[in-house]
């Protein structure tokens, strides 16, 4: 076993497989980024070529910054994603704690009811959601998107987190109770830090679909002031003419913030995994 693990051939093979996978996964991103720095002609003539001194152009970025309020879209996307994640984690963790910790009538039923949301896509209810938003006057506000994304993310969050909450030592919670901590303090100070890796997982799972979503911004908040980045980039895609330079530049810039958020959360993820392994 040990010998096999150390064999250079196996190590090389494992690395080769992982490297191939990395290349395949990163290639489309790479193509988008290089093409965003090329002239329109160069994009179509040689899509895979690196930008040279002749083909280099920042026209795409210029268009993006000139046309439409790119920073506002960016800010909207950021607000919606961060707020949604915050509420998903807060309410998801609280519900999971209640389901895992307290014995009450209908506990199992409640858990199943919450898990139902995993199986039924929220987009089925789009018309009803739109009607509700119109009735409450939330159409064209970021609040509408935050509420919908929170609802969309909660079922999986509750499902994953309640499993992890069950693993937190009962003795620790009871020690807190005997020392006079309130249930809220026990939750925030003792339990949440211990399930942080699970919360990071939930955050990563939810972040990317929210950031990339086009459906709900288009339906619930299409106004100029509330457009998200994904929706804002759509102005460059027309039925007959598409401004590829601008589209590629917008997409390249859209990758950055998700990447930063991912790095923050994934560090938590890895820390959680290793702390368990070397215990």
């Amino acid at each position: 076993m040990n010998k096999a693990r150390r064999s250079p051939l196996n190590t090389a093979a494992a690395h080769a497989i992982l490297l191939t996978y990395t290349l395949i996964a990163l290639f489309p991103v790479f193509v988008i980024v290089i093409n965003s720095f090329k002239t329109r002609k160069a994009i179509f003539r040689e899509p895979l070529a690196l930008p040279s001194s002749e083909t280099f152009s920042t026209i795409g970025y210029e268009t993006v910054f000139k046309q439409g309020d790119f920073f506002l879209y960016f800010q909207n996307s950021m607000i919606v994603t961060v707020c949604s994640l915050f509420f998903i984690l807060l309410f998801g963790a609280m519900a999971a704690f209640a389901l895992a910790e307290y014995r009450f009538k209908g506990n199992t039923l409640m858990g199943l009811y919450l898990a139902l949301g995993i199986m039924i896509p929220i987009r089925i209810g789009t018309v009803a959601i739109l009607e509700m938003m119109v009735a409450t006057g939330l159409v064209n506000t970021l609040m509408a998107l935050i509420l919908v994304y929170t609802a969309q993310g909660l079922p999986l969050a509750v499902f994953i987190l309640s499993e992890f909450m069950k693993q937190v030592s009962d003795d620790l919670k009871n020690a807190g109770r005997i020392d006079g901590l309130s249930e809220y303090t026990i939750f925030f100070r003792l339990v949440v830090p211990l399930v942080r890796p699970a919360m990071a997982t939930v955050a990563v799972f939810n972040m990317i679909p929210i950031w990339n979503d086009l459906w709900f911004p288009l339906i619930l908040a299409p106004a100029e002031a509330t457009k998200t980045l994904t929706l804002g980039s759509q102005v460059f895609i027309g039925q007959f003419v598409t401004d590829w330079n601008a589209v590629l530049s917008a997409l390249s810039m859209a990758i950055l913030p998700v990447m930063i958020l991912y790095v923050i959360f994934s560090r938590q993820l890895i820390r959680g995994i290793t702390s368990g392994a070397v215990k």
Partner: protein
Amino acid sequence: MTALKLTNICKSFGKVEVLRNIDLEVVEGEFVVFVGPSGCGKSTLLRVIAGLEDATQGTVEIGGEIVNQVPPAKRGIAMVFQSYALYPHLTVEGNMTLALKQEGQSKDLIAERVAMASRMLSLEDYLARRPSELSGGQRQRVAIGRAIVREPKLFLFDEPLSNLDAALRMNTRIEIARLHRQLHASMVYVTHDQTEAMTLADKIVVLRDGRVEQVGSPMELYNNPANQFVAGFLGAPSMNFLPAERLGGAAGLTIGIRPEHILLDGAGRASGKVTHVEKLGGDTNVLVDLGDGCVVTVRLFRQHDVETDSVVGIDFDEADSFSFDSSGARVS
């Protein structure tokens, strides 16, 4: 004065009855040990006393006050858990002071209590460390320190030594006994280990299937067990039980005889083949098979050379034996 009084405590989870009609009194300054096999309800009983579980029926009085409706933090108790249950994000000092801070005690008092507890448990050098930087024994001392600083009316210990290795377990046991002498505090201690029960307790409560089997001082229970269960549970190696018929007694009775009261004698009451010999240095345990599935453990003091497979006779003094009827109740 009574430190703790339980009256007719019952507890059931759904249809499963875990505790049945438990009555108990703990005198102030007394060290009471709940002992019993796993699943007998001893930990549940401790949780009911602590207020972490509600009793289905019955009352819990701590220091003369009925506390059924009082939350755990206000009952005047402190608890030490098997898994230490230290707060991972706080230092040793933070762990010990948290409860006092929650009660809103003055800084001087907190500092004084921490100084006293850490001196008692020799934790002075570790006050700034976090639980993850401590060894198992040190963690358990911090958990005990966290209980001491509160100066509770009643200490509760939930199998505090089960996670420690054998050598450390003995040291910590002695430490707990010393603390009890120094603090003169009332303590309730749960364990499944009969050695801990015998060595620590002023009073042992033997539990089985949620019922109290017998209450008494360790020697009372050892010398005068009320039934076959208590007789078999206390003492190591445990008591031998033989059908009385084999030894020429009445049918249906069981004779109980402790391993140290049996002699190996050529012309004894019964004879059998030695199947195994355990040499411990201080004493020697000999397992003798009398046939028909009757195996008797004989404990000889000091070192003896007994051959396995040799045939030996066993004998004992009638006065040292107990007899039980078929329901397990003591007859004589």
